[in-house]
C-alpha cells in the first residue's frame, strides 16, 4: 500500500516539463545517467562504423577501399572513440543511475557538476570527430599518440589534444562526484563493507581516474608544446626522449585498462547472484581483490614496452608485477563460479551476458598472462595476438558487461520488460560473431601478422576473411539492441519493482520505473536483503 502511494506521488514530483529543462539543464542523476548511456550508444555506433572500414579493407589482401593513411586514421579514432566515448561514459552512466539507488542516496553529491561532466563530452567528441574533415585528416599515429609519429600530424594534433583534455576534465569531475556521493551520502546502516560490489568497484575506479587522468593531461600537453611551441620534451634532436612519453602515457594507460574493467567486475558481481539465487561468494575477498588489482595497475605500466630496450632489471620487475595480477583476478573468477555453484540457476538475458563475460573475459586474461611472459612477448608484441587479447577483455569483457547491465536494470529504468527471446537471440548472435571476429586474430598474431597494417601477405588471407565476417555480424548488433529496447519501451510488459525473482539490494525496493526522485528520506537497511547477503557475521 505504502509503495503504491509512493508511485502515485513520485510520478508527479518535480519532473521538469520542457525538453531543455529536462535534458540540458538537468541535475537529476537518473536523467544524466540516461544521457551518458545514450551518448555512449551513439559513440559505439560511430566507433563500430570505423571498425567496419578497417575490417572491410582487411577482408582480402591488396588495397581495395581506402588509402593506408586513412586506414591509420580509422584505427586511431576507432580506439579513441571506443575507449573515451563508448566504454568509459557507459560505465559513468551506469554509476549515475545505480550508485545513488544502491546506497540509498537521493541523488549524486554534486548535481550541477554532474550536469557539466556530461555536457562537456559531446563538445569534446565533436572536436575529435571534426578532425576527419580537416585538411590532412584525423590523427593517424595510433591512439597511444607516440611521438615522434603523432607529431607528424597537422592541425588534428591540437584538436585531438584539446578533446582529450576535455574528456579528462569530464572524467575527473565525474570521479570526484562518485567518490563524494559514496563517501558522504550512504543511507544510515550502509557501511562501506556492506555496499554492493558495483559501488565498491566504482569507488576504486574513481580513485584510479583521479590519479591518472592528470598524468595523461600532462603527457599530451607536452606533445602540444613540442608540436606548436618549440619545446623538445620528446624530441631526441633537442635533448628530449621519445621513450619518456611512453612511460608517462602507460603510467596513465595501464590504470586506464582497469578503469574500463573494474566496473564490469561490479556489474557481473550483481547479476550472477541474482540469477543464482545465492549470495555473492567471498564478498570481502572480492573487495580486497579489486583494491589489489587497482594497486598493482600502477606498477605494471612498462609491460606495454617490453621491446623498447629496457634494462634487464626493468624487464624482470615488470614481468613479475604483471604476472602477479593473475592472482586477484583469478580470485574473482573463482568467486563468480563459486557463486553459481549449488545455486538455483536461471538464464535470463542478463545472466547469459554475465556468463559470457566470465568465460570470454577469462580467455582475454589468459592471453594477458601469456603476454606478461617477456621471452614470449618478444614474439607477441605489436602483433594481432595483442589485438585479440585486448578485444577479448574490452569487447567480450567491458562491453558484454555493459550490455548485460542494460538488460538487467532496464526494467528498473523504464518499468518495462524486454522480449526475452529477442534478448537471448541478441546474446547468442553476438557470442558467435564476436568469437569469429576475434579468436582467429590470435592465430594471425602467432603466425606473424603485425597489428595496425592495412594490407598483408596472402598467407594471412584466410583468417582475416573469417575475422571480417565476424565483424560484419557484430555490426548488426547495435541495430538489433536498439530495436529490442525500442520495442520494450513501447510494447513491453509492465515490470515489477523487484523485476527479477532473485534480485536483492536497495534498487529493487523502489518502484519500476524508478521515480524521478528516490530515497528523499533514507531507507532502512536490512542486511539480509543485500545482493551479497549478510556479511556482518
Amino acid at each position, binding site marked *: 500500500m505504502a509503495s503504491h502511494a509512493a508511485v502515485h506521488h513520485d510520478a508527479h514530483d518535480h519532473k521538469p516539463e520542457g525538453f531543455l529543462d529536462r535534458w540540458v539543464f538537468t541535475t537529476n542523476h537518473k536523467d544524466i545517467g540516461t544521457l551518458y548511456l545514450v551518448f555512449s550508444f551513439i559513440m559505439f555506433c560511430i566507433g563500430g562504423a570505423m571498425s567496419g572500414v578497417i575490417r572491410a579493407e582487411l577482408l582480402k589482401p591488396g588495397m581495395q577501399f581506402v588509402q593506408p593513411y586513412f586506414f591509420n586514421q580509422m584505427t586511431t579514432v576507432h580506439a579513441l572513440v571506443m575507449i573515451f566515448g563508448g566504454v568509459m561514459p557507459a560505465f559513468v552512466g551506469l554509476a549515475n543511475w545505480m550508485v545513488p539507488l544502491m546506497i540509498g542516496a537521493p541523488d549524486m553529491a554534486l548535481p550541477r557538476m554532474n550536469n557539466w561532466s556530461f555536457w562537456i563530452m559531446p563538445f569534446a567528441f565533436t572536436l575529435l570527430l571534426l578532425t576527419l574533415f580537416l585538411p590532412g585528416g584525423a590523427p593517424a599515429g595510433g591512439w597511444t599518440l607516440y611521438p615522434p609519429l603523432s607529431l607528424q600530424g597537422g592541425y588534428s594534433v591540437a584538436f585531438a589534444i584539446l578533446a582529450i583534455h576535455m574528456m579528462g576534465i569530464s572524467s575527473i569531475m565525474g570521479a570526484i562526484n562518485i567518490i563524494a556521493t559514496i563517501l558522504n551520502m550512504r543511507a544510515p546502516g550502509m557501511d562501506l563493507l556492506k555496499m554492493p560490489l558495483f559501488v565498491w568497484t566504482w569507488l576504486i575506479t574513481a580513485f584510479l581516474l583521479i590519479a591518472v587522468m592528470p598524468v595523461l593531461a600532462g603527457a599530451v600537453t607536452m606533445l602540444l608544446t613540442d608540436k606548436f611551441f618549440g619545446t623538445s620534451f620528446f624530441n631526441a634532436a633537442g635533448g628530449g626522449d621519445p621513450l619518456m612519453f611512453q612511460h608517462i602515457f602507460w603510467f596513465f594507460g595501464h590504470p586506464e585498462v582497469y578503469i574500463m574493467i573494474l566496473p564490469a567486475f561490479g556489474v557481473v558481481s550483481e547479476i550472477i547472484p541474482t540469477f543464482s539465487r545465492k549470495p555473492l561468494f567471498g564478498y570481502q575477498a572480492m573487495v580486497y581483490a579489486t583494491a589489489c588489482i587497482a594497486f598493482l595497475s600502477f606498477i605494471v605500466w612498462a609491460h606495454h614496452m617490453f621491446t623498447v630496450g629496457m634494462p634487464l632489471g626493468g624487464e624482470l620487475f615488470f614481468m613479475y608485477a604483471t604476472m602477479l595480477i593473475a592472482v586477484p583476478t583469478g580470485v574473482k573468477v573463482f568467486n563468480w563460479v563459486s557463486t553459481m*555453484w549449488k545455486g538455483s540457476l536461471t538464464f535470463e538475458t542478463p545472466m547469459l551476458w554475465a556468463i559470457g563475460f566470465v568465460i570470454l573475459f577469462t580467455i582475454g586474461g589468459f592471453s594477458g598472462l601469456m603476454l606478461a611472459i617477456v621471452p614470449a612477448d618478444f614474439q607477441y608484441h605489436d602483433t594481432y595476438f595483442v589485438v585479440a587479447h585486448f578485444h577479448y577483455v574490452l569487447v567480450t569483457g567491458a562491453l558484454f558487461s555493459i550490455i548485460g547491465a542494460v538488460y538487467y536494470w532496464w526494467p528498473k529504468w523504464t518499468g518495462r520488460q524486454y522480449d526475452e527471446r529477442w534478448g537471448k537471440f541478441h546474446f547468442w548472435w553476438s557470442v558467435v560473431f564476436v568469437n569469429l571476429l576475434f579468436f582467429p586474430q590470435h592465430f594471425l598474431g*602467432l603466425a606473424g601478422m603485425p597489428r595496425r597494417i592495412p594490407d598483408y601477405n596472402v598467407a594471412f588471407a*584466410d583468417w582475416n576473411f573469417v575475422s571480417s565476417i565476424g565483424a560484419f555480424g557484430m555490426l548488426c548488433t547495435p541495430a538489433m539492441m536498439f530495436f529490442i529496447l525500442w520495442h520494450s519501451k513501447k510494447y513491453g510488459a509492465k515490470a515489477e519493482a523487484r523485476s527479477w525473482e532473485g534480485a536483492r539490494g536497495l534498487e529493487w525496493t523502489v518502484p519500476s520505473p524508478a521515480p524521478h526522485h528516490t530515497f528523499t528520506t533514507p531507507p532502512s537497511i536490512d542486511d539480509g536483503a543485500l545482493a551479497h547477503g549478510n556479511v556482518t557475521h
Partner: protein
Amino acid sequence: MAMTYRGTSRVGRGLLAAASALMAGVASAMPAPWQLNMTPGVTETAHNAYQMHMIALWICVVIGVLVFGAMFIAIFRDRKSRGAVPATWSHNTKAEIVWTIIPIVILVSMAMPATRMLVAEADTNNAEMTIQVTGYQWKWRYQYLDYQGKPARVNFVSRLDADSDRTRQLDSGLDPHAVKADGEQAYLLNVDKPLVVPTHTKIRFVLTADDVIHAWWVPAFGWKSDAIPGIINDAWVNIEQPGIYRGQCAELCGQDHAFMPIVVIAKPKAEFEQWLAAEQASLDKAAATAQIAAPAPAAAGPQG
C-alpha cells in the same frame, strides 16, 4: 623443420600440425595459410619464445578446463528448472586460501624459466659480427660495422620489392597471389636487397631510427626490438640453419608502415664470406671509379 628443435614441441604438435605440414623441410620463415600457432624458429631466442608460449598456453588450457568445467557442472546440475534449491553459504576461507596459493606457485614456476631465458638473451657480449639497423619512413638501412674483428664497410638500403609495391597500390587490379619470390608467395614480404648474414655466428644488432619509431622483427629469430631516434638498442642472433627469413616493421610508423618488410638470407660462413668479399670488392671498385671521375683535389690549384 623442427629437427633442430628440442624441448616442449611434443605438447604443441597438435596445434602445430597445420603449420608444420605446410612448411616441412623448408628453412623458410613464410607464414602458412590457416596457420594456428607460433613456429619454433631458428635461434635460441626463438626456441625460448616458443617454449614459454607453449608452457603458458597449456597451463591456461588446463586452468580453463577446470574453471569452465566447474562452471558448466553448475550450469547443468544447479538449474532451477531441475528443482535446484540454492545453498546459503557465501564464503569458505580454506578454499579461498587454496586458490590464492596455487596460482602463485604456478606463476613462480613460469617465472623461473622465463628469468633464466631473459638473462641469457640480454647478453650481447662476445659477438663475432655487428650490424647496425636504421629505420626510416619506410625502409631499412643495414650497415655492417664489423665481422671477425675487422671493419666490414658494407652499407645499403633495403626496401619493398617493386612487384609488391605495384600490387599494393589502391585499386591496382593486380593479384597479390601472383607476387612470388624464391618460389614463395612473398607479397609484402620481399625486398629489393636483402640482409645477408652467416649462420652459426653470434651477430649483434644495434638498432636505431632516423625519423620515427620503427621495430625490427623477424619471427624466426624470436625477438623484435624498437628502433628509436636518439636511442641505440641492441639484440643478438645466432642462426642455426641457412634459409630465407622474412619479417616486417612492427611499430606503427606512418602511412607505409605495412610496406617496409625485412628479408634476411642466412648463408653458411664460407658462402657468406664470399658474398662479403664480393660486396667489398664492388665497393672498392665504385670508390675507385668515383675517384677517377671526380677531379682530384690536388689538381684544383697550386695552393691545394
